[in-house]
């Protein structure tokens, strides 16, 4: 295959510096995603600017610059045009084509937008967490673990059954009661974490609250472990083995009319110390598998609850 001389060369764009800048921008963006947010933004800006310039360059090369023929007259102004020429400058079929497309687009938008909103928005709105009544505080003696299972939304049935590991730590320094309440949702991928240790089903209590069939079972955990992929946590919820990326989630709590109430769950980076003296880094609730601290936390900038 012989190259076709000039015709072959004619398709090559002229040398350009823009792709290099574009590549630098993309590289900066990708590094920034892991390292820092400002670098991400700077990289994105560089990539967009140089990408635009590159595209403009390429477009200019693709266009065939046509010199106006020598001696051509400037276009006459409207008044001097014949009717036919006006008709050709604004052809009716062009007008009808554009209006059809435009109106069609508007109609499609009017119909489609509410439908898309209906499909997507309900998942993100009206998701308030109502709290759970765990019954009288007497059920949770000091320094003993209890496993409490309850229905988060009784109307949804068994599918909303949740479990929390509860320990009363006694009165704290400021004379306020201290509870360690750990959610059993594994922070790897959401499987149900179990207490590894004896479990006294004989002394399990069924407590009548709004959460139908709330059961409180004494347990003596050496640690907590997950059946799905081998994640393991100590009794404070710190990861000790397996794939989880942070410590177990906990619940805020409140005591209302002598009943222990689970309030909003939150995520925990890591826990130092034990019981009432535990120091932990708390974050808003995140999904399983999402890092809350370290570089990987930058991968999850927007949480669904941020959009409410």
């Amino acid at each position, binding site marked *: 295959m012989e190259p076709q001389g000039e015709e072959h060369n004619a398709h090559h764009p002229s040398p350009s510096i823009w792709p290099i800048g574009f590549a630098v921008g993309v590289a900066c963006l990708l590094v920034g*995603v892991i390292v820092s947010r400002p670098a991400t933004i700077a990289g994105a800006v560089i990539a967009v600017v140089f990408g635009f310039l590159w595209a403009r360059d390429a477009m200019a090369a693709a266009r065939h610059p046509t010199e106006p023929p020598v001696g051509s007259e400037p276009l006459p102004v409207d008044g001097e045009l014949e009717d036919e020429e006006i008709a050709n400058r604004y052809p009716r079929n062009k007008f009808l084509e554009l209006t059809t497309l435009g109106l069609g687009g508007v109609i499609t938008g009017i119909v489609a937008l509410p439908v898309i909103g209906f499909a*997507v928005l*309900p*998942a*993100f709105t009206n*998701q308030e*967490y109502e709290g759970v009544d765990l019954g009288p505080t007497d059920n949770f003696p000091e320094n003993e673990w209890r496993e409490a299972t309850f229905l*988060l*939304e009784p109307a*949804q*049935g068994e*599918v*909303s059954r949740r479990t929390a590991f509860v320990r009363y730590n006694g009165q704290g320094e400021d004379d306020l009661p201290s509870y360690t309440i750990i959610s059993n949702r594994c922070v790897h*991928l*959401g*499987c*149900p974490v179990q207490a590894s240790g004896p479990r006294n089903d004989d002394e399990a209590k069924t407590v009548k609250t709004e959460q139908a069939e709330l059961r409180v079972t004494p347990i003596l955990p050496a640690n907590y472990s997950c059946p*799905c992929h081998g994640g393991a946590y100590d009794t404070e919820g710190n990861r000790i083995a397996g794939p989880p990326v942070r410590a177990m989630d906990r619940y805020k709590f409140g005591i209302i009319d002598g009943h222990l109430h689970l309030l909003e769950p939150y995520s925990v980076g890591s826990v130092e110390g034990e019981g009432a003296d535990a120091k932990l880094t708390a974050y808003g609730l*995140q*999904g*399983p*598998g*999402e890092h809350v601290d370290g570089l990987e936390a930058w*991968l*999850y*900038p*927007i*949480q*669904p609850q941020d*959009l409410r």
Partner: protein
Amino acid sequence: MLETPPRHPPVPPPSRKKTRLTDKVIALVNIPLDWLEERSGLVGGVKYFLFRKVPSDINWFHTLGSATLTAFLVQAGTGVILAMYYQPSPDEAYESIRHITDEVTLGWLVRGMHRWGASVFIILMFFHMARVFLFGAYKYPRELNWIIGILLLVSGMLEGFTGYLLPWDQTAYWATVVGINLNGTGPFVGPLLAQFLRGGDEITGETLTRFYAIHMLLLPGAIFALIGLHLYLVVRLGVSSPPWSPEAAGRDRYEPEPRGPGLVRPTARGRVAR
């Protein structure tokens, strides 16, 4: 000023003595087909679709695509029947599956076909993909058909993911918990995607109905449309030769003459000439 095409010379009336039974039968079959062809061109279209030139040295590996299509049609057919008995609500779903399996006549068979057929469908897709890859059949000019095939593969696997929840038992529930949370770990959009899939913060009955709608309305429609495109490109580009073939792959389709209509050539008077 169109030129009037020359009329066909009138066909001499067939002599009655030569009309045999087989001719009558053939005429009986052809009359409705001719009627259809003259008004729609469908008979010619179907012939064009089915009676294609294929390389002389294709082998059984080339049947994997048709096998995959068959597996999908089995899924579609059995799925429609299952949908007549299945109830996608958290209180009823498990019970209705039990009802289908234990009580509906032959329900165990249809559900079994759908359940095992799902695996067959996915496995055949991978075999078909392996054939296309190893034979180099994805190369020019068939790259676009590879891409459509990938979309089909993704759609098929999403069918598997959404269908797995529908029995609404412990396996289904926890598999979906893990599956959705896997999506949730995706960077940037992961948490939002997981929220959308769940239809909220938690897996509820709405997740079930959502998966049901995606499983039996959205994805099958998409798969049918993609299969249509897939087959269109197969017909347009032809079947590729195996790598060891002396015939060149990707040749133009050979068309001797401007293509006439299919079985018959309709004429202006409605009379048909062969």
